[in-house]
Structures are given as C-alpha cells and as structure tokens.
C-alpha cells in the first residue's frame, strides 16, 4: 500500500549534479583553510523507531560537545535525514547525504535493512560510515569494509552470551522462539552455538512470521516439550505481549524465560508483573556503576532533561570513535588510511565499559547479565567478558 514513485531518473540527475558539484567543491576545499567537517545523520526521526533515532542523535552530540564541539580541530556541520526506517528509501536517502551534501562521515541507523543499504552505498562511494545501532551480523561479516564501523552490537552477540550463561547453569535442553527475520535468526543462532558448545541441546527452534503476535499455539508446544529454558528474541509490542502471554499461561512458574535484552528494554512499564525476574543479556543496563557511566548519565540528563538509554550510549560511542580517528589525523579526512587505522586501534572508555573493535569493525565489549527488578533491568553480572564474535566471512 506504500506509495511508489519513479526515482530512477531523478537519482541520475542528482548523481550527475552531485559529481559536478563535488569536483567544484573539492577544488575549492583544497584552497580554503580547515572547512567544517560535514556529518550526515541518517536516522529515524518518525515512526516506531523515532525515540531511538533521537536518543542516538542526543548521545552523539553530547560526546562532540564534551570535546569542545570540534572533530580533529575542525568545526562541525550536521546534515540530517529522516530515514523513516524504510529500506526502500535507504539508497536514495544515503545518496542525498553523500552526493548532494558531500558529507565526510555518514552516521546511521537503527533498522538493519536500512543499514545494509547504507553500507552498500558507503562502500560504493568509499564514504566513512559509523553504525550506532543496526545489528545485522553481515555488516561486519561478509560485507565488512575498511570504511564501515559499528559501535552498537551484532545480533548474535546477545544470543552467544545467554547461551553460555544457560550452559553454565547446567541447563540441558532449550526451546527457542523468534520472529522469522534476520535479527531473530542471528540472535537464536548465537544462542544455539554457545549453548550447544557448553553441553546443552536446543530441542526445537520455533519461529513465527514478523510481526505476528498470536503466541498461544507456541506456548502449548513449549508446555508439551518441557525444556529447561526458553530463549526468545522479541522487541517492542511483540515483547510486551509475549512476556504477558507466557506468564498468563503459567509457564513462567516452571520453565524460565530468557532473551536478548530488547525483550525487556523500554517495555517494562507495559509488561508489569509478568516481567519480574526475567534474565536478559545486553551490553548495557541499569545500575552499571563505573565513573564514565555516572558522568555520562549526569551530563545527558542535564543536557536533555531525560534519562539516557542504550541507544544514547551507542550514539555517544559513535562520536567518541570518530573523535579518536579525526584527532589522529588532525582533521585531515584525506588521510583516510591513517584515520581508519586509528579508529581500528581505538580503546574507548564507554559508559557501557571498555569498547574496542574486532577485525570486522564490530564491538568487543562486555555483555551483561541483567535481571528485571521493578522497572529496572539491573545488571547482576558479566555474562561474557570482552565478547568478540568471530567476523565470519570478513576479508579485512
């Protein structure tokens, strides 16, 4: 039902105009003294993920402001595009920023489908891209590139961490349930891999089409299979409904439910009592007591009159990573190889803890084990210290 339009011709025109403008601009830039660094923020500012886009933007700008509002000594100019979480519009939107606005750095986005399209455009144009959320494994796997970085997580990381914890708790059998799409498959895949490596067995992998929320038949199957634990990947409205249905079916009394952190992030208000005691894994959580996090939380709530969440942290770290890179080349984006090298070697002091990057430019960080207490996802321990998922298929 989405409106379609013929964008081919317009795209071509923009591209030609963009190349022409680009030639003129780069000639001019060589003469001018230290022009502004152009940063393209391509994030969702409307729709379901609007709040995430805003949190990422806030976190990003906070880190920049803390370092004097500059990158490598150069002033900054922001170009913003609302990607509407629409993969169909993603190539066009990314091209707008790269070809029309001539951004030096592209930052985005939340939705994995959009991020995959962005990473393709960024690779084709050799534009520096920093991804502050989208977790598709492929971006830092087979599709990895020297100019593409990620400061958030990859989908399989949360599953890997939870699988390990459950195996350590001597759980023998597990059933997994997820929406049938890339993020869910990758998360469940990670769980299966580490759970079975630790001696457990995934007895059944259930899935339903995205974004269906009729779970009753799956709950009946889980009850019949009686596994030691159930691992799920759901987010938003689906996460609320699943957790409530699971409790209403009485399953939470006999079979523990665990999941990737998104199961209980931003949803606790709606889940109420049904979520109490649930264990989840994520790279951030409530009550994380380190100096950087405390300072970050204070600065964020002062600047934006709101509490930061994991998305704000990811945006903050995207900016921190760029600061390291740009400082290393003193703002000279032409020295791309040195810039990339500095970013690859960066050891960031993130609110989540320490943050480094693996060969595929994906985060190496602690994944926390969290327990729902009241309206908080309390960090109760480290599930995996410095988790690095193998950059499968990455040729860097």
């Amino acid at each position, binding site marked *: *039902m989405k409106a379609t339009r013929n964008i081919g011709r317009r795209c071509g025109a923009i591209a030609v105009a963009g190349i022409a403008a680009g030639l003129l601009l780069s000639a001019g830039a060589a003469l001018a003294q230290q022009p502004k660094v152009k940063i393209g923020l391509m994030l969702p500012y409307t*729709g*379901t993920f*609007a*709040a995430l886009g805003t949190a990422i933007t806030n976190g990003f700008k906070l880190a920049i402001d803390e370092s004097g509002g500059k990158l490598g000594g150069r002033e900054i100019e922001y170009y913003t595009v609302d990607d509407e979480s629409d993969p169909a519009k993603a190539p066009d939107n990314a091209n707008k920023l790269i070809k029309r606005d001539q951004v030096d750095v592209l930052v985005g986005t939340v939705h994995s489908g959009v991020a995959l399209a962005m990473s393709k455009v960024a690779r084709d144009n050799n534009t520096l891209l920093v991804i502050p959320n989208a977790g598709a494994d492929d971006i830092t796997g087979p599709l990895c590139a020297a100019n593409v970085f990620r400061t958030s997580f990859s989908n399989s990381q949360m599953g890997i961490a939870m699988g390990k914890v459950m195996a350590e708790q001597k759980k023998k059998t597990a059933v997994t349930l997820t929406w*049938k799409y890339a993020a869910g498959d990758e998360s469940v895949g990670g769980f299966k891999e580490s759970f079975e490596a630790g001696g457990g067995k995934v007895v059944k992998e*259930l*899935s*339903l*089409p995205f*974004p*269906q*929320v*009729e779970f*009753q*038949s*799956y*709950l*009946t*199957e889980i*009850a*019949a299979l*009686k596994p030691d634990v159930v691992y799920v990947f759901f987010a*938003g*409205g689906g*996460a*609320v*409904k699943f957790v*409530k*249905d699971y409790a*209403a*079916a*009485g*399953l939470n009394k*006999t*079979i523990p439910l665990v999941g990737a952190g998104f199961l209980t992030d*931003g*949803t606790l*208000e*709606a*889940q*109420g009592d049904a979520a109490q005691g649930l264990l989840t894994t994520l790279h951030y959580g409530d009550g994380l007591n380190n100096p950087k996090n405390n300072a970050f939380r204070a600065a964020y709530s002062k600047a934006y009159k709101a509490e930061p969440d994991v998305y704000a942290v990811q945006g903050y770290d995207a900016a921190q990573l760029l600061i390291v890179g740009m400082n290393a080349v003193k703002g000279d984006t032409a020295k791309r190889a040195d810039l990339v090298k500095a970013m690859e070697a960066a050891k960031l002091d993130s609110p989540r803890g320490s943050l480094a990057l693996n060969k595929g430019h994906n985060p190496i960080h602690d994944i926390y084990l969290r327990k729902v207490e009241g309206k908080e996802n309390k960090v109760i321990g480290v599930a995996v210290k410095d988790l690095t998922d193998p950059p499968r298929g990455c040729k860097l």
Partner: protein
Amino acid sequence: MDIYSLLIQLLNGVQYGLLLFLVASGLTLIFGIMGIINLAHGSFYMIGAYMAFTLASLTGNLFVAIVVGVVLSVLLGIVLEWALFSRLYKRDHLEQVLLSYGLILVFEELRSLIVGNDVHGVAVPAVFNWSIPLTSTLSYPVYRLFMSAVCLALAGLLYVLIHRTRVGMMIRAGASNREMVSLLGLNINLVYRLVFALGVALAAFAGMIAAPVSSVYPGMGTQVLIICFVVVVIGGIGSIWGALAAALLIGLADTFGKVLIPEAAGVTVYLLMAVILLWRPEGMFKRVG
C-alpha cells in the same frame, strides 16, 4: 503430538478464530453489508485499544472504560459518516480507498501526537485475572475464555439485528437498492449513518476488549486490517454466519499451520483463502439480499 496437546491446540484455534471474528465484525457491516471499502477499519480498532488504555487508567476499571469508549466511538462514527463517508456512497471504490487510507495516516499521526509512540499494557480485570490449569505446565487464562464468550454473544446479536429485525431489513434493502428504499419513504441516510457508527463502535469495542491480551502499540491497526478483509471475503460478503465460519476456519488453519508446518506458517491462511475463492468465488456463504 498427543491427544491432549491436540485438544489444547484446537481450543487455541477456536479461541483465535473467535477473536478474529470480533475484530472483523465491524468490517462485515461496513464493507460486507454497506459495500464501503474502509481501510481505516484497523485504525478504529487501534483507537479502541488506546481508548481502553487511557480510559482504564483514568477510571481504574476496564468495563467502565469500555462503556464510555463505545459511546465515544459511536459519536466518532456518526461524525465521520456525516462529514466524509456519506459523500462517497455513489462514487468509485477507488475514492473510498483513498479517503480511508488517508484516515489511517491521520489517525496514526494523531495517536503519535496525543499518546506518543510507547508500548502500553492494559491490566486484565481482576475478576478474570486467573488461569485454569490444563496440564502440569500449562494453564489457560480465563480472560481469553471470557473474550470468546463475548464474541459468540456478539455474533448472535448481529445475526438477530440484521436478519430478524425491521432495522435489519432496512439495512439489507438499502444495501441492494438505495433509491428504491428511499422512494418507499424510509430515511435511508439515517439508517446508513447508524450502521456505519455501529461498525466503528464494533471495531473500537474489539480493540478495547482485546487490549489486555494484545497490549497497545503503534501500528497495531494495520496488523489486523488485512486479516479482517480475508475473513469478510472468505465468509461471503455480507454474511454474519459466513464471517464467523471464516474466522473460525482461519483461526484453526493458522494454529495448526504453525504447529504442523511451521516453515509455511505465514502463508497457510492465504493459501486457504486462495483455495476457497477458487472453489467459491462469492465466498462460503451467499450475499444477503
């Protein structure tokens, strides 16, 4: 699968089917009987769910919220029919599609402005907030059984209204020939306005009563829209029993599709629709009037 699981899955299927009927019942009236293509049906469902959330947190009682919500949605229906839909009865279906699609966008934006984009839960009323143990591990929430009972009662009431009352006769007559009915001296405009309002109220009612189990979130309306049209089309346009039978069939197909052929869970319902429409292009039950 043992016999016990089979029975429980059967219950799941029937229960889901009844819920589908509840959600689609308003569309049976507006699309099935009045013949207006109303894509905003899902929005009315969404509005109902959000009303349940807001009114229940204001009044502290879901049932009070439902009564107030039904009154409000009847008013909304009357206003919409008077201001917009009444102008389109004689026009092309495409224009009805455009109008109601526009309404989806308007209502989503209003929802975002007024209530925001967060996910909300609605508490199950205390009377029904318990479960019946079925096996050692599985219990069945009583609220779901209550919902099923409401759906059955509603199906009965709708049948009586459309097929056994004078008003129902007028509605059916109006659906087959508007001009003739007004020539006979009946105020067909008023009848249509009321039926449209009833359709809106039914959709909102479905949203309200389903809110405790479905939770309340952006985009929930568009999720139910397509399945509602499937129910009405399979059932045979304009037939209450047809819609009920179709809803049950879809509920069972969906449930057993998920259990028996999980790889194809997404398409079982639409396969069923294709088969039924090949077998009976008019739907399972014939058109009224």
